[in-house]
């Protein structure tokens, strides 16, 4: 067994897929692992995968053209998941869809083949990541700093920043904002009328992020008051509230 160790990022995993395939050892005899999240195995040969944007782009392109845009989306989202064995599952699915003996029709439908264990796992991971990203469409809360920047802090399980960047920059094209994911130590940054980007392994200035703009506290009070007065007492149902709005999100939220 030859184990390819790759970096925990979409590019890292896709490069791993490229190298493992390119090694011509045979799909049964190779496996992909994440460098940070693996246990060493006996009787295995290890190879380091150097993340290479070009190789990753090639894999992405062929997945798109052979397996379709839907499949690419599912695989991409799964690659952002926190699941430690995701790399190998993704590799198996791609092998499944791009083998020489698979017809175009089959390749396009591989991603719906929930009967296969690997496809099903990738599908589940993707759904989880997608759902968490949607949670952050809902629960990201900005506060205005005295520099005029909108700042938000979240603690995500999976790497959701790449999935929420488009939404927020489309929504606030004229704002300077920053979303800091303290679980992964990544920052999503958007400048006024400029494209968004992600800085990995960067944390914001501890002092600057607590210096609020003049009217910020007033707005927060207004919002908290609104959340209180909009509730109908006769229907109070904290259990239902918790179901839709789990406690773990509230720590980082204004009204939480």
């Amino acid at each position: 067994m030859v184990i390819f160790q790759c970096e925990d990022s979409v590019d890292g995993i896709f490069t791993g897929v490229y190298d493992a395939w390119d090694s011509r050892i045979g799909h049964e005899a190779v496996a992909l692992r994440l460098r940070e999240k693996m246990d060493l195995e006996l009787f295995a040969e290890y190879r380091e995968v150097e993340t290479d944007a070009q190789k990753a782009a090639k894999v992405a392109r062929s997945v798109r053209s052979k397996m379709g845009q839907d499949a690419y989306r599912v695989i991409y989202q799964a690659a952002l998941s926190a699941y430690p064995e995701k790399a190998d599952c993704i590799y198996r699915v791609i092998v499944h869809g791009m083998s020489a003996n698979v017809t175009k029709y089959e390749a396009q439908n591989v991603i719906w083949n929930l009967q296969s264990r690997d496809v099903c796992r990738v599908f589940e991971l993707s759904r989880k990541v997608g759902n968490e990203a949607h949670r952050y469409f809902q629960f990201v809360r900005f506060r205005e700093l005295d520099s005029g920047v909108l700042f938000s802090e979240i603690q995500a399980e999976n790497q959701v920043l790449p999935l929420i960047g488009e939404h927020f920059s489309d929504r606030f094209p004229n704002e300077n904002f920053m979303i800091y994911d303290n679980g992964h130590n990544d920052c999503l940054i958007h400048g006024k009328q400029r494209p968004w980007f992600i800085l990995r392994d960067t944390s914001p200035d501890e002092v600057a992020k607590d210096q609020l703009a003049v009217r910020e506290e007033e707005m927060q009070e207004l919002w908290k008051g609104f959340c209180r007065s909009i509730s109908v007492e006769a229907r109070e149902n904290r259990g239902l509230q918790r179901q839709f709005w789990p406690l773990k999100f509230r720590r980082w939220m204004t009204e939480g």
Partner: protein
Amino acid sequence: MEIAKNMDLYKKLEILSDAAKYDVACTSSGIDRKGSGKGMGNCTAAGICHSFSADGRCIALLKILFTNECVFDCKYCVNRSSNDVERAAFTPDEVCRLTIEFYRRNYIEGLFLSSGILKSPSYTMELLYQTLYKLRHEYHFEGYIHVKAIPGAPQELIEKTGFLADRMSVNLELPTAESLRRLAPHKTRKKILAPMRQVQLSRKEHKNELMLFKNAPQFVPAGQSTQMIIGATPENDYQILSVAESLYQKFELKRVFYSAFVQVNQDAELPALPGGPPLLREHRLYQADWLLRFYGFGAGELLSEKRPNFNVFLDPKCDWALSHLEQFPVEINRADYYTLLRVPGIGPKSAQRIIKARRISSLDFADLKRAGVVLKRAIYFITCSGRQMYPLKIEEDFILRNLMYSQSRTPAETVTYRQLSLFDDDRVFGEVPQQLLQAGV
């Protein structure tokens, strides 16, 4: 009844959101719109809930009344003119600033603007129009706006407002004209339906225009909705659901909302509700509403004159399936989409997944579970490649008991056979509760 001048914003927001809270429609769905890049905001068709209040309802929009001053005296309403409550009114600028400041902090998805009737319907509608105009054109807000069309306001005003809003709604208030006459003496069914019809026709007209000119302005692109109060008047579920069905068909509404009646006023005409608002009834109506909109059911299939109310113990779909056992079991690997949708435990998403997955190879029960089918309900009604998961009887009593008592698990095989014992008792299924016997199920 004085509108306090110089009231601070916090107090105003408190009063006017408190007064708006009995309106149920807080959805931000129905339209996908990218930002133009110049202003602020966009819309997502699925809608986004930003927070949840203590009653478990979602907070997607800044739901406020423009003013809670009202000339009408509807018996069920907290803002009726005969009530002595604190009154307040926003200015258009205050509403705009609140919306913008909340929106840019990602607190809300947009604005829900309703109002009590200040002076006259047309005066109030004019105020709402001005507010929306300011918000769209001076503050360049491109997020979601839901606004009330006020019955009795002039047509041109509703038309103009419709071009600024994403969704418009006119509240039906009560399911029948008779109840309306009794509880809302200033409103008539005819007056309420007129703006509803107008919005429907304008939407159609402007859709045609959009086909010709790509950039023609959109009129109420997210459609219109309405709401009914449930439990304040003696209508049964069948009547209510039939009203909803005809609203969907004849008025092309996007949503009908049901609001369990909450006792806010003491009035001889209103029922006393010692058990609190009829929440379960509301829940069953919503379940049935989904069946109408997404599952291809008709109101007449779910209820009838003879059986006018929903089963308290079972959801409407299970209830329907139990009384139509001749259509089951359904073969998962063959049945078409609409047949699959009729199986309890299978929804649109899992039905679509089943159809896609079975193109590649046949499915068994483990695969169904992965596709998101709720097996503990579906198991009685399906076969995979001709087999049931366990040998189960397709028999009304048996399925009913199992659906009710094994809420959280699928029945093991042991349920179908019983070991004879000297001390035979009913412990396997438990006793049938009295309420159930009375309900006659």
